[in-house]
């Protein structure tokens, strides 16, 4: 399986609210709410870190989950976000993703 890189689209609005990421697509104003684990993946989607590394370094160390299972779920998750156009996917590193949103109070 080739590495998968993700970058946040510039065509979004996003803010961390009470530990969960709220994202709105600028295309159609669809609103998304990512849970805690989804938020970790989203914030780590810097275009340079492969999904497998994010799962290993950010998910498996924090949550009680098997790496294979976690990667499978994470892969499905990022592909779903990509279908909505709020996350860009590539088998090569991606330059200049949108900035990670600042944390709210």
């Amino acid at each position, binding site marked *: 399986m080739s590495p998968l890189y993700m970058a946040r689209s*510039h*065509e*979004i*609005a*996003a*803010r*961390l*609210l*009470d530990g969960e990421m*709220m994202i*709105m697509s*600028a*295309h159609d*104003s669809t*609103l998304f*709410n990512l849970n805690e684990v989804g938020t970790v993946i989203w914030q780590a989607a810097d275009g340079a870190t492969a999904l497998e590394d994010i799962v290993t370094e950010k998910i498996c160390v924090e949550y009680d989950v098997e790496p294979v299972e976690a990667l499978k779920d994470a892969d499905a998750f990022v592909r779903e976000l990509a279908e909505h156009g709020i996350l860009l996917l590539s088998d090569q590193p991606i330059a200049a993703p*949108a*900035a990670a*949103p*600042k*944390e*709210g*109070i």
Partner: protein
Amino acid sequence: MSTLMEEMNERALEAGVPLSVQFDVTYRCNERCIHCYLDHNDHGEMTAGEIMDVLDQLAEAGVFFLCFSGGEVLMRTDFFRILEYGRSLLFSVKVKTDAVMIREKEADRLAALGVQSVQVSIYSHRPEVHDAITKLPGSLKRSLAGIRLLRERGIETTIANVLMRQNLQDYPGVIALAKELGAVYTIDPTITPMMDGDRSILHLGISEMDLRQVFRTPELIDNVDEFCAPPPAVDDGARDGLPCSASHTFCYISPYGDVYPCVQFPLPTGNVRQQKFLEIWKHSPQMNEVRSIHGRDLSTCSACSHLGTCTRCPGLAYLEGNMRGPSTQDCEKSFARTAIPSANMLAKAAATQGSAGSCHLVQITGLQQPFAPGVDVRKIESHLGNQLL
């Protein structure tokens, strides 16, 4: 409102997060609308650098929805610099503009920056009516050209139609324009007093009888029967309820850095040139006073049958002299919807009846009896509306 949006608002309310902010970047304007509540002279508006610093603070405070308005935002030659910075902080940005100065280049920038929506005020489909309200010759033609450029680029655009005596008959034409342009249409019958409390422009508002008609027009109201139904019995939910989002999940910032609970609630709470935004939001005594008010704390309104359904604006009440008191304009709306007078209207009628006993008073007292549609009653309502507007 979607369920997810409701959840978002509830979480923001619980966490004390200012989810939405309206930021007027200037009060200067190229139009001189007859109903405008602003002083258009520049008394020292913030620089782009100051505004960008405030935007950083708003992002840190958790603001998600940011509305840039004015005045006319494009009167600032640095507006796109401010907008670009706001989008880099990932705000969901709405821009209110008259669109007069939107050409290809401006429309391209707005589209490229991923603005969520643009709102433009259109008063009539007839240039002689619209331009007489804006006092800018050619403004309708130019505003519509601007909207077309926005729509050609797929930017969601809302046409806001403020209703006044001058343009009351023209809303069907504006609806048709919105349809042709692929724009969302909204109507607003509220004329807001001047920021300094001057209420002289309120005479521009439509009469109570006309408001009644507007509220019963299916083209404007989704479900007329539901909208105009008598209010349900007041329960603890209404008594414990909050008047609106002002100071709870929303606030307003002026071009001079003044922070207010809302754009039409000019209660000074602090200034971002002197304090950090979060310090004002969390600790301003005025913000916290507004936050402390629930339905049961309202003088007069807590005993009103409309308490649970009234659109009572605490800012308009404040402009009448008491943020816990009634907003007469909203009393009139509740009455126009349901034909049931508010506690405020009954109290005023009773007080005046006790002291003077004029012709109007007898008629208003009559409305306390069960409502019966008919020519006479409508005539009475007309008196009531004219007296209160």
